[in-house]
């Protein structure tokens, strides 16, 4: 029994499945349409694997025009649509429903234009995050947001969730790095928002669409800001006897006016899991670890590191290890970025994404361990400490329904705690279905109603990713 409810599929749509599929087949070649049950099953979930729903059909258009024709048809037929990038959402943002058609952007994966003098790149939405940086890395440039899933996740999904990553402390999240979008609205209308310039005219629709979780339309192209990479960058490992000391050190670094490129935190369980997987050379005799990355010229790096080392010493740092080579740097980041995958080898987990004021780090880490222990479960913490974006991984056995319920209950308590101390439910993963029913913890009914009225401007009939973000009860307008 799944704890998070899905809306009941519309029997009228299910009954018309053959007709709807035939309509789609008239619009697209066979290679762009997935209809057999076996093949549809490949799209039944995302990275929130405890929940699964086989969609009515899956469409993989090759162009904006093709995608628009599909949207127009489905809108006319009143069929729901779930947008999908690579299906790496940890919040269930891409999980379908039985009466919905999945529209995936995976076939639209071309880099369209690279413009170094203006420092922009134009891409189709199905291109992966890492492929963007790969396209410009040889010329010394990069695309800044770097979610851990960057090898697989698409820019479409990044835009849908306003994804972040380890290096966002200095360079911002997706919304700070997108200049323009091409998007298909629910009725098939193609719109362009922003472009190759700063601050789009009129209302900031770009800011609204980024992070809207596929509820306002489907993005098919993006114009992104690319940046010239620093002369050099060096991650340094700082081991501390306790999590509290590491947390206090983070607050002191920021308070001293130092904004490193990244400050990543791992507690003992996370260090052990990641080290076993990646052999990155993380110290195993510490209670918590910070990965602090600084960048610039060698002299600038030395200067900033000296200040950080002095601060860390004030917080009882027990191990300091600098990366000495590009290989070591790669290993250090590989270990961190494979944290979720590595954890998945040890146990099933749900990954929380709450954000807290950084001053609350020691307090919240302590209370998280109490909450999880009270449910008889284990937790590994690995997260972006510089901006207070926690990722407690609550470990459980997916085949034990009782444990799953306990894990979800512990997760909900952790997120409520984040809101209670002044933070929020999600910093970069999105609400999806996972945190949908916790929205009233953070928002008043009036807050939510205002958001839903804005949503309704784009999708009055709740056809786009309709099971997500907003609690199923009390929707505006009512479904």
């Amino acid at each position: 029994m799944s704890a998070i409810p899905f809306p009941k599929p519309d029997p009228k749509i299910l009954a018309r499945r053959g007709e709807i599929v035939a309509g789609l087949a008239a619009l697209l070649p066979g290679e762009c349409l997935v209809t057999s049950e076996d093949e549809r099953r490949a799209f039944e979930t995302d990275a929130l694997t405890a929940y699964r729903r086989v969609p009515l059909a899956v469409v993989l258009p090759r162009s904006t025009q093709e995608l628009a024709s599909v949207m127009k048809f489905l809108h006319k037929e009143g069929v729901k649509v779930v947008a999908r990038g690579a299906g790496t959402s940890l919040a269930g943002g891409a999980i379908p429903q039985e009466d919905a058609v999945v529209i995936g952007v995976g076939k639209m994966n071309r880099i369209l234009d690279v413009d170094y003098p203006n420092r922009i790149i134009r891409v189709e939405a199905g291109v992966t995050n890492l492929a963007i940086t790969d396209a410009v890395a040889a010329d010394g440039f990069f695309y800044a947001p770097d979610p851990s899933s960057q090898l697989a996740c698409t820019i479409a999904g990044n835009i849908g969730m306003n994804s972040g990553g380890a290096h966002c402390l200095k360079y911002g999240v997706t919304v700070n790095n997108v200049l323009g979008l091409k998007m298909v609205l629910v009725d098939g209308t193609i719109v362009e928002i922003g472009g190759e310039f700063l601050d789009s005219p009129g209302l900031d629709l770009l800011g609204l669409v980024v992070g809207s979780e596929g509820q306002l339309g489907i993005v098919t192209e993006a114009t992104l800001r690319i940046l010239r990479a620093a002369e050099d960058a060096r991650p340094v490992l700082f081991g501390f006897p306790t999590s509290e000391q590491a947390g206090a050190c983070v607050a002191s670094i920021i308070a001293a006016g130092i904004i490193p490129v990244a400050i990543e935190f791992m507690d003992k369980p996370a260090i052990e899991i990641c080290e076993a997987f990646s052999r990155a050379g993380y110290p195993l005799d510490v209670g918590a670890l910070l990965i602090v990355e600084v960048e610039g010229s060698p002299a600038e790096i030395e200067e900033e590191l000296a200040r950080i080392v002095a601060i860390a010493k004030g917080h009882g740092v027990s191990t300091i290890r600098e990366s000495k080579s590009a290989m070591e740097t790669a290993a250090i980041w590989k270990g961190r970025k494979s944290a979720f995958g590595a954890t998945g080898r040890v146990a099933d987990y749900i990954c929380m994404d709450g954000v807290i004021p950084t001053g609350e780090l020691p307090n919240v880490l302590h209370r998280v361990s109490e909450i999880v222990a009270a449910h008889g479960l284990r937790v590994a913490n690995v997260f972006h400490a510089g901006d207070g974006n926690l990722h407690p991984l609550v470990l459980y056995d997916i085949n034990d329904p009782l444990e799953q319920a306990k894990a979800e209950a512990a997760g909900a308590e952790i997120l409520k705690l984040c809101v209670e101390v002044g933070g929020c439910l999600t910093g970069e993963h999105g609400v999806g279905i996972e945190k949908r029913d916790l929205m009233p913890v953070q928002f008043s009914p009036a807050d939510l109603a205002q958001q839903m009225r804005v949503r309704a401007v784009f999708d009055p009939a709740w056809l786009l990713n309709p099971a997500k973000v907003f609690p199923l009860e009390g929707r505006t307008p009512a479904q």
Partner: protein
Amino acid sequence: MIPVDETEVADVVAGARAARRPIAIVGGGTRAGLGRPVEAQIRLETRGLTGITLYEPSELVISARAGTALSEIEAVLAAKRQCLAFEPMDHRPLYGTRGEPTIGAVAACNISGPRRIQAGAARDFLIGLRFVNGRGEIIKSGGRVMKNVTGLDLVRLQCGAHGTLGVLTEASFKVLPAPKSSATLALHGLSDDAGVAALSAALGSPFHVSGATHLPAGIGADEALTLLRLEGTEHSVRHRRDALIDLLAPNGGAEELPAERAAALWRAIRDALFVAEPRETAIWRLSVAPTSAPKIVAALADRIDIRHFYDWGGGLVWLAVAPGEDAQAGSIRAAIAGSGHATLVRAPQAIRAEADIFEPLSVPLMKLTAGIKTSFDPDRIINPGRMYTGI
């Protein structure tokens, strides 16, 4: 009306809605010339909503009520060596206004300055808002933490909406450490094309340029000046300054400006002082792809008299023109041809009431914009017509 708290703001709005009487929001009044004139029977002043409500330097966040003077916030931040990194422009010189700019207007109008090219705009630092919508409801969006993707982002929707979607009552901004030192390099006598090319080269370098401006001859000095600003710790600035001088050798050789002159120039660039006089000229702000900016300017200069300079590496063009009938809106928008946008920042009242102040939107985007206005303000009583007819 001068409400002293959020509840009173909600009461004013609810009363105005019941009476179908439109409201004009008034902050410090220093940017009243920005946007289309609002015809309203009720003036809702935010000067009763003041005070910093939260400042945690170690968490890089400040919150203040909307009517709080920007100068108060900047002073409090400076005492802890922090700043609003987006360097908000002061519109007083351009409009010849007095009074104190407020933090609410910075949020409502998305006001940024030269550092926008590197650090981001006001909209990139605004992390939380409280406001009263046109139904008289108190709404919050975002919060006080650095990352937040919970629900739809109404914060960004409000930032740059010029008060058309509600009365902002409190804003939270991410702040950053103030730069410890700064250096400004100047290249002399470059054409617009060569100046913007030098800015592109510098911005495409690893040296973190935080200001990139080209002042054509006759703007600020007799000969053209191409300016690049570096900020950070003393060591780092010195290193990057030397590296950038080497990099720019093919562009004509850069020299460092004395600190005082540089600071005065960046203030003048931020506030568009170079085009403030003569007062009767109309002023435009064009946002375009940097490398296309000199071409657009050249095409315009063939047709009309202009004075101009470039900020944001060329991507922002400040333009002064004779007011004429429509402040040359037709020529300017034709020159941009959809590959950017133009905002009429200053013009006589009669033109402001008639011309498109903000870039006209495509039909579907206009429809969405109107729908969003209605979703916040169903009877269109808050700052009606400030951005577009009826919006």
